[in-house]
Structures are given as C-alpha cells and as structure tokens.
C-alpha cells in the first residue's frame, strides 16, 4: 500500500459540517470563513424533539446533516463530487483513489469509531464529518474539526465508521470539491441565506420548531428533573447533549 500525504491546513471549527465544507473550499482557493458558510447555507435552526422512541427529550440547533453542503453547492455554484456505495470495499478503493489523486476528501462517519477522541466523548451518531487528507499503509490521516490536531485512524475503524448502519446511515458517503467558479458574487447568496433562515425560524407553523421551539423548550426544561431517577442521571443526560452539540 503506498503512502500519500496531501498538504492540508488543519483548523478547529465550531461545527463539523461547516468546518469540513469551509476547509475544503479554503483548500480549493476560495477563502470564506466558517460563519459565512453557515450563514449562506442558512444553517441555523431550532427544534425541541420528544418522542417515545427517544430515551430523553433532545433539541437540535442546526439544519439537517448534509443540508449545508447542498445549499452551499446550490447557492454558490460549487460542484462537489459526491458518492455513496453499497459495497464497502468499493467505497474503500474510491477513497484511496481520491486521496492518491490529491483531493482532500470529506467522509461521513459514525463518531463512535474516531478513537483519537477521549472515550467519554465518543457516542454513536452517524452524522459526523471528517476530512481524510492522507493514507499511509494501514492508517489514514484524519483532520477532525473537533480535535486540536490531525490524527491517525486505522483503516478497519474507518471502514466500520463509514459503513455503520442505523438511523441516517452514512453508506460510505464521501465528497470533495470538483469545481469552484472563478468569480463568485456573494451578495445574492447571503440574502437568500438570511431569508431562508428567518423563514425557518419564524414562519414554520409547527409548535416545536424555530422560535416556537425555543419557547416550548423553556417551558419543558422545568420538567426535566422529574424525567430522571436522580441528579446523577440528569447530569449524564445534559452532558450527553453537550457532547452532541
């Protein structure tokens, strides 16, 4: 197995998806900041979710995973080469090829298998994005925007993480920038982003989404102690929300 390291600037970011998209665009020569990417994509959202399927109420603060990439691509005219795979070995070969061709590639993974993270932080959630920027025999070099430096991840772990099943299964989803237009006018995309975000936050006629969701959350959070056995479990639940945010 050959070795290939792509020179790639690692930066931490506040959110994994905006972090990866921003890093890919910056690598491709389009300098945007993370808040700008977040704003253009209209990433802000609020939802207070409670259902019998969930062990505990939860809230979301951003739009659906994958939305930021799609909206950026649509509003700025940037083309991402995206692919999903049924067969894990095909997915692995495609990732190796993309890196050998010199594209830093973002992959969707299950957060649990990122074993450079401390153990208490690792939870099973399929909507995490990392950038793979190097392959070295049995290891990949991974740039994770939640971690302070680039780290190594075993090939087998990466394969398991990319083809984890369950809700929002990644199915080996990977993407890299294919084409970035020479000239981009940001005025229109920014206005669209603001309009869309304000619509999502204020106009949706559903009582647990947007501003209405914030109000509902404020009411319901008083009932949280009653939902748990003791203070320890409550702390555990809140901690878990903190990790996921």
């Amino acid at each position, binding site marked *: 197995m050959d070795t290939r390291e792509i020179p790639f600037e690692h930066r931490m970011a506040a959110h994994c998806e905006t972090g990866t998209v921003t890093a890919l665009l910056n690598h491709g020569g389009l300098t945007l900041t993370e808040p700008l990417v977040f704003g253009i994509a209209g990433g802000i959202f609020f939802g207070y979710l409670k259902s019998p399927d969930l062990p505990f109420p939860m809230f979301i603060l951003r739009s659906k995973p994958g939305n930021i990439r799609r909206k950026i691509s649509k509003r700025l005219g940037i083309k991402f080469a995206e692919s999903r795979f049924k067969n894990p070995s095909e997915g692995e070969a495609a990732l190796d090829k993309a890196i050998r061709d010199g594209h830093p590639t973002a992959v969707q993974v299950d957060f649990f298998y990122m074993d450079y993270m401390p153990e*208490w932080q690792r939870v099973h959630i399929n909507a995490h994005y990392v950038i793979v920027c190097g392959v070295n025999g049995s290891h990949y070099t991974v740039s994770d925007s939640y971690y302070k430096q680039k780290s190594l991840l075993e090939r087998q772990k990466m394969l*398991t993480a990319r083809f984890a099943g369950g809700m929002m299964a990644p199915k080996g989803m990977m993407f890299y920038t294919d084409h970035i237009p020479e000239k981009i006018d940001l005025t229109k995309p920014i206005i669209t982003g603001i309009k869309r975000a304000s619509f999502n936050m204020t106009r949706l006629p559903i009582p647990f989404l947007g501003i209405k969701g914030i109000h509902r959350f404020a009411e319901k959070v008083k009932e949280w102690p009653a939902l748990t056995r003791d203070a320890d479990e409550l702390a555990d639940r809140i901690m*878990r929300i903190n990790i996921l945010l």
Partner: protein
Amino acid sequence: MKEKDLYIESKEQQMILYAEKEDESYGEIATGSYATKHHLPEFIKYKETLDKELRKELMAGKISPLYYFMLMQDMGPGDLAKRVGVNRWKFKKQMKPENFDKLGDKILEKYALVFGVSIERIKELKTH
C-alpha cells in the same frame, strides 16, 4: 457575548466559539467547554456506577454481555439491531442471557464490530 465572559480554562475538551473581541470585532476563540469543566467528574462517576450495576447483573446471569455493551454505549435495541444488520425480533432472542452461549462466532463478530471490541472481550466479559 464578550470574549472574556466566555473563555474557560479547561484541558478536557477544546472547542471553538464565536464571540465579540476586545476591539469590538467578531471572531473565533478557542476555549474549554463549560459543561465539561463542571460536570465531567459526575458524568464519569455515573458511568462507573452504571458499569458496576450492570456487571453485578451480568454475574447473576440476568443480562447478557450484548445487553451490557448496548447500555454502556447508549444505544436502543432498535438502533443496535439495525447497526448489526439483524432483524429486531431475532435480536431480542439473541439478547437473552440463556441464548448467549448458543451464538456462533459469525454473529458475534458482527456484534464485536459494532461495539468496536474483540470477540474475546465479549466472551470473557463474565470472567473479568
């Protein structure tokens, strides 16, 4: 929020937040996490208590190692069944402690892959 109100000295979890800086510009600051700094010991203590309780039940033969790993990694039965790729009712059957010894290596391997541990670890959990 201002930068100085937000900054937290903690080594456990570093994160990026966006805040107003001294010169009134707006930018990113690298800081520790508030919740992590104050609640991490409680969180770890809770995990340890859970681990102890579950191990006690495991020794008594009330639960199977699969159930132990499921709760320790905070998954629901439906979620785990989907990740392993077995039917939900089949999973319910496999999860029972009396059926654990009957499971073959092939199916245990699937579980081990999802839990991110080796097969031996699952098999020897009762003795350690």
